[in-house]
Structures are given as C-alpha cells and as structure tokens.
C-alpha cells in the first residue's frame, strides 16, 4: 500500500474521529455527573444541525452567526431536556432514567420527522470549507483539516471550563459525590443543567461539521453517530473527557482503515463500533484510560 494513500486515510480517520469525539464529550460529561446514558444525545446533535440549517436558509444569517446561534439554541435544548424530562426522574432507579432518555430520543426523532419532514435536506457548506488544499502531493478538502483543529479548540475550551472555573469544580465535585456537594450549598441542579448545555453545544458543533461532510441532514441522522460516540466514550473510559476524544479518534481511524484496507467488508462498517464495545467490556471493562465502571 502506498504511503500517501495510507496518510490520506489516516487524516480522514482523524477528521471523522474528531467528530465522534466531539459528540462523545457530551455523553461522557453527563454520564460522569449523573450516571445517565443520555440516549437522546445523538438527536440533540441532529437538532443542532437543523438550527444551523434554518439559520442560514430562513433567516439568511451569515454562516458563522448561524452556527453560533445553533450552538446556543442546542445548549438551550439540552437544558430544556434536563429540566423537563430528566430532573423529574433524578431520584428514580437508573433504569427509569434510561427509559426516559430512550423516550426523549424517539420524541426528538419523530418530532423532527413531523416538523422538518423525512426528506433529507442539503446542507450548505460555507465556501471556505469547500476548498481543496494540496500539501506534499496529498489532497485535502479544507473541512478535513479544519475539523480536527476546531475540535481541539472546543476540547480546550471545555477543559478550561472544567478545570479552571468554579462551575467546573462543582461539576467535578458532583461526579464524585452528589449528596455531599448538595450539602456544601452548591445548586446541583443548576450545575447539571450547565453540563447538559455544554455537552449539547459540543454535540451541535460536531453535528454541524458532520452535516458539512455529507452534506445533507435528516431527522434520523443522529442515531448512528450518537451510538458510535457513546462507544467512543466507553472506549476512553466513561466520565473522562480527554478519553472520550481519544476514543473517538480511535474509532474513526479504525472505521476508515477497515473500509480502506478491506473494501469488501465496507458494509460492516457500522458494526465496528459495537464489535469494539463488546470486546472492551469483555477484556477491559474500565475503558482504555482506566476509569472505573460503575456496577
């Protein structure tokens, strides 16, 4: 195999993996703090795409403004979801919360079908992402280069929030011991809502880049990347944000390489993530980064 081909595929894998990673951050933050697999996270990502789409199309916003508004709206959706559906079942058995999350997921998907229609919509990619660069004989669509860079920037911002702000410290405390944190006078529900907001915004960012990659959106587009991002979060050790990013990269590269090296297995691409998940839980149930799984 040629080196250039390999490099090309690696870069593709990194781009795809960054997206998984970005979406995985939301899963891992929410799970880390309230031990809930937010099933609807992929659908939140889908909503982010539609917000951006309508921003550009209906309100004729410049793309960057539309994206910014989409991030804010998706963050608000995350908060709404937390307050409306998850807060009422916070003290219920964890399985009840999971069922609620599955319900919210289907609600968003079908609401999407009802409101936006089932037909995929073309997503307009800003020109600057459509250019193709040539570096040392390799061709790069601008998007493939921008994706990892933007992802790193977002990861950096989130890490800053978590390790350098008071809110972030409260998040870390809650994930350690919610009851005690409550006793310390922290408004736990507010912090949890902020967590949802941050995670949802990151998912929206991932989703928008996803939409530009393909470039179309539909109400069920969040399901598969959502599942895969969850696997990425588990790979990286759930609750661990950097781990989620690494898990995403690993998954993205594995998928792209499978398709590139064994094209006859391309149809099994979507099974790779779950194959990895099952293997991980069998042989290294704490994830690659080694955070302990709960019982």
């Amino acid at each position: 195999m040629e080196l250039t081909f390999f490099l090309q595929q690696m870069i593709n894998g990194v781009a795809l993996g960054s997206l998984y990673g970005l979406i995985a951050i939301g899963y891992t933050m929410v799970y880390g703090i309230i031990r809930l697999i937010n099933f609807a996270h992929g659908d939140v990502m889908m909503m982010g795409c539609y917000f951006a789409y309508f921003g550009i199309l209906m309100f004729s916003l410049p793309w960057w403004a539309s994206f910014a508004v989409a991030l804010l709206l998706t963050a608000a959706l995350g908060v709404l979801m937390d307050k409306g559906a998850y807060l009422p079942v916070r003290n219920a058995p964890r399985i009840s919360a999971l069922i609620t999350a599955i319900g919210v997921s289907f609600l968003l998907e079908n609401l999407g079908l009802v409101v936006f229609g089932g037909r995929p919509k073309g997503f307009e990619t800003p020109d600057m992402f459509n250019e193709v660069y040539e570096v040392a004989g390799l061709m790069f669509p601008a998007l493939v280069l921008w994706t990892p860079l933007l992802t790193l920037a977002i990861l950096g911002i989130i890490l800053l929030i978590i390790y350098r702000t008071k809110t972030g410290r409260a998040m870390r405390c809650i994930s350690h011991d919610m009851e005690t944190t409550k006793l310390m006078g922290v408004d736990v529900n507010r912090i949890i809502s902020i967590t949802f907001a941050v995670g949802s915004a990151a998912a929206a960012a991932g989703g928008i880049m996803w939409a530009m990659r393909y470039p179309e959106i539909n109400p069920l587009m969040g399901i598969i990347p959502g599942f895969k991002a969850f696997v990425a979060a588990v790979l990286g050790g759930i609750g661990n944000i950097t781990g989620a990013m690494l898990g995403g990269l690993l998954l993205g590269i594995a998928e792209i390489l499978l398709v590139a090296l064994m094209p006859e297995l391309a149809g099994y691409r979507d099974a790779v993530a779950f194959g990895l998940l099952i293997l991980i839980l069998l042989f290294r149930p704490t994830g690659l980064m080694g955070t302990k799984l709960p019982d």
Partner: protein
Amino acid sequence: MDPNHLRNQILSIAGTVVLLALLYVANTQGSDYTIRILNNIAIFIILAVSYNLINGVTGQFSLAPNAFVAIGSYTSALLTLTPMEKEISFIIEPCIWPLSVITLPFIVSLVAAGVVAALLALLMGFPVFRTRGDYLAIVTLGFGEVVRVIANNTQSITNGPLGLKGIADFTNIWWAWGFAIITVFLIGRMIRSSYGMAMKAVKFDQAAAEAVGINTYWHKMLAFTTSAFFQGVGGGLLAHLITTISPVLFTFFLTFNLLIIIVAGGLGSTTGAIIAAILFTWGGEALRFVEEPMDLGFIDIPGIPGMRMVIFSVILVLIMIFARQGLMGTREFNWNWVCRKLGIGGRS
C-alpha cells in the same frame, strides 16, 4: 397451596374456551381489517410477554429483542420458501446450500426459529451478562444493531437489503393466538415456579440471591434464552403474516415499541404486558387518523407521518415521570381477586 386451585383452573380453562369462541366469531364474521389487528395483537402479546421475562421479571434491561425477532423471521421464512421462490428472490447472489434446497412445514420452521434465536441468545449471554444495568442495555443494543448489519450484508443467506419476498401467508388467527396462549401459559408457569422466584430474586437483590445459593448468571441466561425462543417464534409468525421481510423491519424501532408496551403494562407483570400489547396495537390503529390528511371544513391538514410515534414517545416519558409502575406494577391477574370483587366467596 391455594385452596381454590381447582376452581381457578376450571375458570382458566373456561376463559380460554370463551376466548377461542370469540376468535372463531371474529374469524368468520369479522372484516379482514379486524382479523389483521387480531393477528397483530397476538404476535405483540408473544413478543411483549417474553420480553417482560428478561426485562421485567429478571430485571436485566435487554434492548435486543429486535435481534431475536429478526433471526426468527429469517430462519422460518428461509425454511418455508420453496427452492424456486428462493431462486427468484436471490437475484444478486444465489442462496447458499443447503438453504437453497430445503422446504419444511410451517410448524417445524417456527420451532427452528425459536431454537436458532435461543442459541443466539446463549452465545450473546456470555459477554452480555458480564455487564449490568445501563451497560447491559447498551451492549444488547449493540448486538441488535450488529445482527441487523449482518442481515444487510450476508447476501447469500438473507438476500441483503432486498429482503425476502413471497413468504407464504401461513399465519392465521389460530396459529397466532395458539402460540400466544402457549407463550402466556408456559412463561406464566415458569414465573410461578421456583425458577421464576429465583429470577425475581436476581432482580431485587443480586447479592442476596447469591447468598441463598442462586446461580445468578445461569438464571439470567435461562430468562434470556427462553425469552429469545419465544421472540424467535413470534418473528416466524410475523414473517408469515406480512409475507415480506427486510432488515429495515428489525431496527431499534421494533425494540422501542416493545419497550413502551412492557413499561406501560408495568415492568414485571405478564398481565400488564398482555393488556398493554392489546392497547398499543389497537391504539396504534386508532391513532392512524392523526397521520392522515384531515379536512376540517375550514382548514386542510396534510398527513403528518410520525405523529403517532410522537404521541407514544410522550406517553413513555410521562409514564416514567408520573406513573413508573405502569398499569399493573408487578401485580398479576388472578381469579381469587376477580371472585372477591364479584362477591363470589371461595375458601381462603
């Protein structure tokens, strides 16, 4: 144990006879539409009651019933299709030997569907039951997706995305309800036996279950494979009812429908699962109008596909928030209760 045991048994048999009589009337007098809904109800009862065994009774939150229904559907369909029909269907790649040449009776294909699904569950169980709670949910979900991806790609076995067409419409009201009654009877018996008690113990407190000598792993496996067996049979019945199957039928969407049923019925209650299966199937039909175009005289509302699922999703979330016990909680129907309510005294 129960002094009214004999009376209750007679009542149960009488109840079954009445049910069969009603089905006979429906089958001869009812419209095709009514019969179709009745068939659907029976199949959903089979699927929901068996799903409840692993999720409700044993407390292991599996999200893989779609995988077992899929396996059952394909197995039985491939076994009843004639070699010629297979040759016509498999246009991209021919069907592999020996599937390409065998044709078996419907009943054999249904049993085979159950057995193959149970074997798959046995294989899955080894990794799956190393995990618990929401991780178990995700791993089973993963298996469900993997099965669907495989069905999509093994062209020479499943005919890939094209699916199987021209499956004989063997499933009628007697097959469907016959198996529904058998499923409810057998699973109900199992739950009432000490094996069922042990399964409940696993759900309530795994450590305490081990302390009384229950092999928790094995009992989870037992519930899982039994559940898969009946889901496989249900899948076989489904395939011979709708006569065309393809991988898109068996997505997580199917699991979601079953989940709504057992949650609404009350996780752990077979009675609840039956009632909810009836309500869901009937309600799904009754709600069909919300997706059809409406002309209210002054305003035209175009059809909105997906509206029913919006309603069902909202119902699921509301149940979780306001009525976590569902219709029945973990209670079961019993004749003693009915007789007491009707004022017919029994010995106590």
